[in-house]
């Protein structure tokens, strides 16, 4: 057997191998960079197209309407208090507005160019200043959705002709109705507040149920439960639950909360309960991982000082695991906030024209509202859909920002 030659690090074969290794590294770095650029491009495309289409939803077109309200007669006292809306409707305010529009905009289409809600703007102005009754004035009122779209540049030829005729009597302003109102059949009057409030109530119920139950379950499973077949089965079941499609939870909610307990249909309460079922396994899994990450030496230290098991858990383990638990919880909540399917199953897809005041009031939620609006025929709802998506994304971003803040705020290093 011959003596092994000493390695020749300068041999051409060795040099080639070295070059190949560097080339592989460069290729890998380029692929990674390309992946990041591609995802950034998709994200930018999504945001730009949403904002471009949805920004119009936050703006409404108004027309300067000359009004003569001297025909509308009403006692001053009836303009005070809760009966004012009814009194003004009874006094023929809507007809007066229509007549004024017919007179002022006859060539452009008369009263048809006004939004269904135009007279409500006049009503609110009168409530603020009863002196408007009995004199001539000019008020900016919202226009019908066709005119609104035409002014933003996507309308029909007829509507665009009307816009040209109206000329500088049209103006633009922030659509406060969109932030304050609920769903409506007329897109100029449709608002997001009803759905947002429904979502917030639903989330409140979900959080109030899923967080304590999930955290306590995670603590029990990690700190107390013996390791045996039963806990193994429970663990596998929880992991499977987290992967169950959300519509199944909707069916479960329908069967249990509506079918068995006869809770009210389309209520935020039932939506919250159903989403809590869906979110709980996520919180349990995140919680268990966070609890597992607490070093055992901390538990030993507390136990060796004579801390009872409950004291070990609540003085040491839970505070140290909390940042991780909170991060997992907020990710679970963000998923629940964007969930549509289970809410459809329990009837939260109804047309709800007033924001819910109580948990049992009929309500809808942001993603469901987006789904409903995207299904509408009217052109005006296209930009409302995009605007609602922007609102949903902003709420989600705020939640994730909160998650990052909480994690940094409570994180302890050891």
């Amino acid at each position, binding site marked *: 057997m011959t003596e092994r030659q000493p390695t020749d690090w300068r041999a051409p074969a060795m040099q080639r191998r070295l070059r190949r290794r560097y080339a592989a590294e460069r290729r890998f770095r380029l692929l990674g960079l390309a992946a990041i650029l591609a995802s950034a491009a998709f994200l930018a495309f999504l945001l730009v197209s949403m904002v471009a289409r949805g920004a119009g939803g936050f703006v409404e077109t108004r027309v300067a309407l000359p009004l003569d309200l001297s025909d509308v007669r009403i006692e001053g006292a009836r303009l005070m208090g809760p009966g004012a809306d009814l009194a003004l409707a009874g006094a023929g305010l809507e007809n007066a507005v229509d007549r004024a529009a017919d007179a002022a905009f006859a060539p452009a289409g008369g009263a048809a160019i006004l939004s269904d809600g135009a007279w409500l703007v006049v009503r609110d102005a009168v409530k603020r200043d009863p002196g408007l009754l009995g004199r001539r004035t000019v008020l900016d009122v919202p226009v019908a959705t066709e005119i609104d779209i035409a002014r933003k540049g996507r309308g029909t030829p007829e509507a665009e002709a009307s816009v040209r005729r109206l000329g500088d009597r049209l103006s633009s302003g922030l659509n406060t109705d969109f932030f304050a109102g609920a769903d409506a059949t007329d897109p100029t009057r449709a608002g997001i507040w009803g759905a947002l409030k429904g979502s917030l109530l639903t989330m409140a119920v979900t959080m109030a149920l899923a967080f304590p139950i999930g955290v306590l379950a995670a603590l029990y499973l990690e700190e107390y439960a013996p390791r045996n077949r039963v806990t193994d089965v429970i663990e596998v079941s929880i992991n499977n639950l987290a992967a169950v499609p959300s519509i199944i939870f909707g069916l479960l909610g329908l069967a249990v909360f509506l079918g068995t307990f006869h809770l009210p249909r389309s209520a935020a309460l039932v939506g919250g309960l159903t989403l809590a079922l869906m979110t709980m396994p996520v919180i349990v899994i995140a919680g268990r991982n966070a609890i597992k990450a607490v070093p055992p*030496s901390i538990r030993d*230290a507390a136990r060796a000082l*004579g801390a009872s098991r409950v004291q070990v858990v609540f003085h040491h383990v839970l505070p140290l695991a909390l940042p991780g638990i909170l991060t997992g919880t907020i990710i679970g909540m963000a998923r629940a906030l964007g969930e549509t399917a289970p809410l459809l199953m329990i009837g939260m897809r109804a047309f709800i024209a007033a924001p819910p005041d109580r948990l049992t009031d009929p309500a809808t939620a942001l993603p469901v509202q987006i789904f409903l609006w995207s299904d509408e025929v009217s052109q005006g709802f296209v930009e409302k859909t995009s605007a609602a998506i922007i609102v949903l994304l902003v709420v989600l971003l705020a939640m994730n920002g909160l998650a990052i803040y909480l994690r940094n705020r409570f994180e302890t290093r050891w």
Partner: protein
Amino acid sequence: MTDHAKITAEGVNVFYGAKQAIRNVSLHVRQDEVTAFIGPSGCGKSTFLRTLNRMNDTIAGARVEGDVRLDGEDIYARAMDVVQLRARVGMVFQKPNPFPKSIFENVAYGPRIHGLARSKAELAQIVERSLQRAGLWNEVKDRLSESGTALSGGQQQRLCIARAIAVDPEVILMDEPCSALDPIATARIEELISDLRGRYAIVIVTHNMQQAARVSQKTAFFHLGELVEYGDTSAMFTNPREERTKDYITGRYG
């Protein structure tokens, strides 16, 4: 001998599941002495130490047989309260494990959960006295609100000793307290152990035979779960009775 014994163990067997870790160990720990447990890795010395404050209870599948008494009370009796036992028998671990809280809170935690201080001033007094006894007071008195984890390794270990002292234990168990420390920090801990002798019964597990010789009065040599030899440290290191002890302390194995 029994009249000075703080802890007496008779015929102790410890099992982890089917595996027996400790075989029929009997020994006495005296109130006024430092007792060292030595032996090669895996010989059961740490396991035996943990039977003395029932820390083995927390390990799934661990089972203890035999009779262990603290001041004549059976610590494995049904009537014995584990929480109180662990307050009476403090423990310091191999790796310094301060809580990720302030230095003050680290020491104050024990007295607080056992309700040892009636006022804030009294609690502050306990914290100061404990840190002084642990020889840490002068180094940390101006930064009690800083995190305990920001201290150096040796300081952290002395903080853990102060934390154990703060609940006023009768016995302190130390499980290789210096194995993660540099020689200077080790020397400080050894000094501290000598200072604490007499006030607390101290049991120390160590890999370092010089350390056992320096700090202890009694030494127990464990091998494969058995107590091979137990007696005065000076006698054991100069004139071991057993062949196995002699082989170990002269570095033949282990």
